[in-house]
């Protein structure tokens, strides 16, 4: 049993089932509160009947003109609640908010190029690789090579011409300032 609800600051005390997972980053307090203050409807928790947090999604609206879009900053599901379609449900909610509230042209997210499972899941949810961002992620350990990210996008209603979909996006390389690395530091 699972239910989506708005995430609140007090959930930071209770999201350990997800945040003890090694793939889920623990940010400082202001990172979460910043998202809550600025994009409250983009930050949702998925809870079970007893109120335990099974996963959460946080996102933001950014960009200009036709680049105005919803961005998935974090999406995580606790190990015991995987294979239930929770990620899809939370992504649906973020897409609904992008369409209905922010009127974004598309939703995008970044994923490590090596994370084939996640890439496959996002493809099933209708996302496709728009571009490959070189050296977006830091190496897992000091001395390890940086890793590229796929910027995956899914057009929303407003993108009538589907301009956020690009053929052969995997081969379209870009070099940008590393957002994720900067946050890690």
């Amino acid at each position, binding site marked *: 049993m699972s239910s989506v609800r708005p995430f609140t600051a007090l959930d930071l*005390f209770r999201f350990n089932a997800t945040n003890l997972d090694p793939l889920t980053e623990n940010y*400082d307090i202001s990172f979460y509160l910043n998202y*809550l203050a600025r994009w409250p409807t983009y930050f949702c928790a998925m809870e079970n009947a007893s109120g335990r947090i099974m996963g959460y999604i946080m996102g933001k609206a950014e960009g200009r003109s036709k680049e105005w879009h919803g961005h998935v900053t974090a999406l995580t599901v606790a190990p015991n609640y995987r294979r239930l379609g929770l990620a899809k449900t939370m992504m649906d909610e973020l897409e609904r908010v992008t369409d209905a509230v922010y009127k974004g042209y598309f939703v995008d997210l970044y994923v490590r190029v090596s994370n084939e499972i996640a890439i496959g899941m996002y493809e099933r949810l*209708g996302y496709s690789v728009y571009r490959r961002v070189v050296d977006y992620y830091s190496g897992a350990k000091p001395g390890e090579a940086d890793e590229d990210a796929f910027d995956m996008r899914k057009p929303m209603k407003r993108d009538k011409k589907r301009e956020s979909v690009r053929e052969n996006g995997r081969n379209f390389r870009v070099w940008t300032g590393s957002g994720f690395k900067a946050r890690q530091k």
Partner: protein
Amino acid sequence: MSTPNERKNQLVWEQLELKAYKQALQLCNRRIKKGEKSEMLLTLKAFILTHIATPATTDEAIQIARSLSDRTPPTQSVDVLRLLSRVWSNLGPSQADEVTKLWERAVKSQPQNEDLAREWFWGTVRTLDWRGAQKAAMNLQKSYTKRREYWFWAVVSSLLLHNSLPADSPERKLFGTLAYRMIDKARNDTPADTTVIPARAIQTSQEVSLLLELLSYVSPGDAHKEALDVLNSKNLGVDSTIGGGDWWGLARKRLDLLESAGDWRSLFETCKTLLPKPQNAAETNGNGEAKKDEEKKSDEKPEAVQGRGDDWRVWDGFVLAAGKLYDDGDKAVAKESLEKILEHRKALPAGSSRHGDLALVKFSSLFHDKNDGPEGTPTLLEAVEEYFVNTGNKSCCFEDIQVYLEMLEDSEKKDFLKYVEGKVEKLPEESEKQKIDKVASTINYQKFVYLLTISPLLKAIATTTKAITSFITDTLRVYVSAISLGSSLLVTDNQYGDDAALLSVMGLVRLYTLTPSDQAPLYQSIQILESLLQKSKHNYQALLLLVRIYLLIGAIGSALDIYPRLNIKQIQNDTLSHFMLTRISALLPNDARTASFLSDAGGIYESSRTQTPNMLQLAFERGGYSQMMGFLEFSERVAGSVCRSMYEVELRRLARLSPGYPDPGTVTEVGHKGTVWDNRDFSVVVDCELSSIASFEKSFRPGPTPAENWVRAFVAAEEVIRFMTAYVAAGKEANGTAAGSGEKPKPGDNLAGTLAMALEAGDRAGEFTEAEKPYLLLVGAMAELAAAAARKDGETVLKALEGITSDLFPKTLDPTTTETPAWGLLHKLWMGKDAAIVSEGLVAFLNAVKGLKPNIPKTAITALGEATKKRKIEVVKIAEEAKKSLEDEDKVQALVDAVLAEEGVGSILRKEEGVFGGVESVAENVKRIIGGVVKCFESL
């Protein structure tokens, strides 16, 4: 490019940062003497004086601040205003109004300076000064009527001021009413047609949420009704354009309100409209997972997804309301509800409607005791059986139906287990996926077995041990059999059978809690968990259990080895670090990691203190009003956290017990404005216990759980200890003329009383160990002695001293050691040693105190001094005996034999060499673990 004065000011700030207040003051005074009279320089001087904080410097600071604040025209410099505000704030609550007066005058003198008016507001927000914020916001909304946000800032700050005032304060009601009237005006100004909305009407969903939040604070009687009116309204409600900004958040609120109001008819009807239409549900496989072969374009989304209908909150409300209406005599609604559930499930492929299946379980549970319900209602047993058939291969199956399983009659429970066992046996194992699914189903079955047959076993009798042992071996076999399936898993994944191994550890822990003198189950658990963690390196359940079990057996260093693998960071320091750090200073104080982890954990409190006000400002700027109460409560809960006080106490004890570790200074006040918050997360640990008994995690904590009374008692104790140390140090500074120093510390008010009250309450609540209680009684007597010494009452001091020497101090270490050397003995010995150290402090205090009438005989003081010396020797002696006992070859061999017993768990540890390393490896590991315990006793 900075000016010469700015560079000179920078030099002063550098001294301030170094806390070199006298040097900073000298720098200012020199410049003033040379004729410089800038406002900033004078303000800086006043600021420094508030840090020195003697009566004379405080007076001077007030004088300077007053002259600057009263200047006409008022200062034009925002920097001076900001610093002057800090001066007044530092001067204490009696001067609190001065900050507001200062800014009011400045803003009034520049009525067109909007930036200045905003700066006033931000300053109050950053210092959480809600009275000032309310005034500043009201000024903004009155002066700049075209800016709509100022209206809402005034509403929010009036509400925050209302919330910050005591419940019986007449002002509280006043500001609550003001906030309500203002938001009500905004509500009334919102037209029915929201195409064009006046500036100060409600325009966003956040403002709707603010209105709803406000209602619950200031209009408790009618809040429900009024909130529902809002949520049902066409211009602001759930389905309005404005409310649509947070459609689901508001829709949930409406369901919550209907449920708490007991308006079952409306709840039923509302849920019914939200539930997915069968054809839409079918398009998403019911559980929201899109069919793989039906990729859809974004504009073809089914309604179920748009409406969030397939959400357990909706199903739960729908079934609950139907049951309530049925009880009230409306049988038709129950029939309709059942039909709806069945229709939904029918539209989907079997097993893909988790919520629909569970709704049927919940529905049948409503009629379980009554043996009735609409025609076609399955029995609860049938419903849970079917749920297992459809969802048994998901790890959440157990927790989904746990509550319903507990409702079954005993015979039904047996039938259920038999049914599930049969189903699992028949599951196919041809493909890899089928094999994995079978492991998951088997684990769910074993969780049911634990819940229904192991959890109720609370007596240490042969049949119990046999049943639990059988359970442990069964689950361990499942774990072993599943290992081969995980060869292609990622390093970050857990193995498919891990939960089975955790269940076996739960069984072993139950054996241990039934017979605590037998530690073999704990050593077997360690073996299992360490093996598991070789293959599932990040399984946090295993890591948490391993930390706990290492602590229990007294291998504190081994627990410290494991703990960093949990990678606890940021706010988790407040919620999770207690698993390792509770009582750590009285377990292994002289390991460098202890101090390091405690210091790291303590960092979160400063982070929260500095970051949250900025986030409140951001929420104001961005109109995130509905988040602000949450931000404030969050920050108050962190500030008043029980762990914050716990870790401060631990660090101070550490400084006494670990030579060379610096004194961390005073312990801050317990709680936030008198309230202590417990943010610890215990629930993260796996649990399959009956709801009627304690959680699994609670069943094997190392000692009682420290909470509010514990921190109140120990913080008071630390104040007593610190007072004595400070008194002696002050005496030394005054060249031995102890009685003559004006700076002599005084004992805190009624510390003995605070300590006694907390001890008594905490004892009732089970917060203290047997070693902590006599320790606190000892320090309580020291507090009474100190108070008597302050009164120069030699008679009472002597009486207290004699009581301490003859009775209280000896009781702080029970020399009989019947228990197996483990955490409890380590804790007792460290507490006993600490009692000796604080008693030495008492001896030094008594030697420093002059002028008692009558004087204390030296022999009485010496007697306590001698007792402390003997205590330290005794502690070492007991530790050595424990060490010998632990290293006793026969005992070690007996433990190895028990761990590797031919029957039960031992047989699997022996047999499964590939998993557990074989007999020799297990035996070596047991010896290594014992070696870890020995090291802890050696550290005494």
